């Protein structure tokens, strides 16, 4: 976009949801379900987690009611990955030749993505951009980001340089402000600007902008205790390939793969071949895989990375070292999901510091 119009104030989310639905999008946003924040299809803002916040620490996540914010929680177990890179897709059926299914890419508006989620999408774009199916699903997304106000105790986007404010890669971005409760909204794309212009809105005042800056300042300060120096990490991790620390981590790691599956940038997949019992037609399915599964590197019946230490090393080294070799950026965006959702509570930031 050529010129950035001033952010405007929205008093409620419902008109946005309605406008997006009328615009042909399935609107997906945060809801409270079974004790966690989950993305689900929304028909109104009433389904949002208003007044809920989370407490996260390694291996632990709890929701509690506090405050009045709609987006007063940090990264949820869901990320945009499910929508751009679904857990399971049929690649083709084969009956004397391939029969490709339509790419399932319904226009979807994702509401509530954070700066780290946007950064993760940018990372995915670089890794999976060669895939036409990925591009189709990606192009079908309308992204409504929210500036992060309440990072959790595991977040470290400031260290990775990815947040907490949404800077780019969105159609719309909101800053949620209180007293009075309102959203400062800015467009990041033409279509975002169009939607915004059509919504009931008010002009913003300098005080609103100041309040928004304050949100980011407070959020940044919350992550200060966890801040670490990124410079040199790539080389240090590569140099630590034979460190005894990997073995020590492996004694705690369950090799369960939770960290990789929740990570918004982890992209590994496997394929499964099958035959239909009734008509004998063959089918090939692609599904999420993880460098933690035993057979991932199987070669001639034996895995190359047989030990848990080798598998943990692969995961951490990829995120902070070899990803940079391959794509010129880090594979981690600092969302902390892998830390919270690791049942053994392994904190990769802590491990990183020990490896340096």
């Amino acid at each position, binding site marked *: 976009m050529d010129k950035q119009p001033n952010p405007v104030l929205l008093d409620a989310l419902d008109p946005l949801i309605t406008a997006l639905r009328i615009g042909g999008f399935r609107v997906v946003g945060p809801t409270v379900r079974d004790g966690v924040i989950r993305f689900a299809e929304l028909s109104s803002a009433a389904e949002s987690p208003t007044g809920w916040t989370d407490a996260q620490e390694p291996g632990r996540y709890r929701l509690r009611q506090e405050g009045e914010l709609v987006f007063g929680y940090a990264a949820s177990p869901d990320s945009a990955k499910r929508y751009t890179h679904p857990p399971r897709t049929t690649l*083709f059926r084969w009956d004397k*030749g391939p029969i490709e299914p339509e790419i399932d890419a319904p226009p979807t508006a994702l509401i509530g993505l954070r700066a780290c989620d946007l950064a993760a999408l940018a990372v995915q774009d670089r*890794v999976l951009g060669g895939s036409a*199916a990925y591009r189709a699903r990606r192009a079908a997304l309308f992204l409504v980001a929210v500036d992060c106000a309440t990072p959790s105790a595991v977040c470290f986007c400031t260290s990775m340089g990815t947040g907490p404010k949404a800077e780019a890669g969105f159609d719309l971005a909101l800053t949620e402000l209180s007293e009075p409760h309102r959203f400062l909204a800015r467009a990041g794309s033409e279509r975002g600007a169009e939607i915004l212009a059509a919504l009931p809105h008010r002009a913003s005042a300098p005080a609103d902008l100041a309040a928004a800056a304050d949100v980011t300042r407070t959020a940044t300060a919350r992550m200060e205790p966890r801040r670490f120096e990124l410079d040199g990490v790539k080389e240090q991790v590569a140099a630590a*390939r034979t460190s005894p620390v990997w073995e020590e981590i492996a004694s705690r790691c369950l090799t369960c793969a939770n960290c990789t599956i929740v990570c918004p940038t982890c992209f590994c997949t496997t394929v499964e071949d099958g035959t239909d019992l009734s008509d004998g037609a063959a089918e*090939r399915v692609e599904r999420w895989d993880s460098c933690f599964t035993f057979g*991932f590197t199987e070669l001639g019946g034996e895995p*190359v990375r047989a030990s848990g230490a080798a598998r943990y090393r692969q995961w951490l080294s990829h995120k902070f070292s*070899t990803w940079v070799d391959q794509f010129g950026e880090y594979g981690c965006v600092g969302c902390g999901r892998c830390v919270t959702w690791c049942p053994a509570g392994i904190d990769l930031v802590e491990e990183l510091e020990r490896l340096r």
Partner: protein
Amino acid sequence: MTLEMTPIPYRVRSRRADRAESVTLTLEPAEGLCPTFEPGQFTMIYAPGVGEIPISISGRGRFGGYVQTIRAAGAVSRALCRIEAGDLVGVRGPYGTPFDMGASAGMDVIVAAGGLGLAPLRPVIRELAAHPGRYGRLTLLVGARTPSGVLYPRELARWARHFDIRVTVDRPDDKWQGPVGLITHLVDQIAIGPRRTYAYVCGPEIMMRATADALVRRGVPAGRIALSLERNMKCGLGHCGHCQLGPLFTCVDGPVVTYDHAAPLLEVPQL
């Protein structure tokens, strides 16, 4: 619409069971022409309903198509070995980095193959043999488990016109008169001018490392030793993650790499 993960139907033009417990297929697209390839590249071959595996391209068929040699190692390769002339399989590719034929121009060339490693080296050898003037001394070292495990025996005889060929086996039979033992012994036996030698190596990983190390010991720079890595591959596109070796996705950054890049990676156990 054809997506990158969807194989294209290829017909088995001919099938030959090799002495070496492998099967050599010539595959042609059911429609249209098959893309060009460079020595060292591979395709993903799909046995419908069974699975898809990477197989190196060993050459062009007489009427076009890819010649590919497959050994029955597991379920998918077994299914491919059972396939008959006229059957359809799926093919994606060619993929991967090739052996750099320009890099060895004007030099002595050593080609070292262990077992099935001769399959991806066949186009290299043919290229060298086709332009003998372009290169210096040509040496072909072949290691096999048994005498009958030596691939392409008839062609070997033909290549002898251009190459100094030496074959060694692990387990000789009664008729075997040649050398017995590791291919590295052959490296030690040949004359090498280290500053004007280029080597193409393919075989099991330990064989490649031992051969490359032996060459390095003889003074050949690691940057002039090309080898072809083998890793678990599901996509061939750098999307599935399985074939990663340190900073490399073996399917797109490899399989062919030079030893200066590979050595520090292969040294680390379970990388």
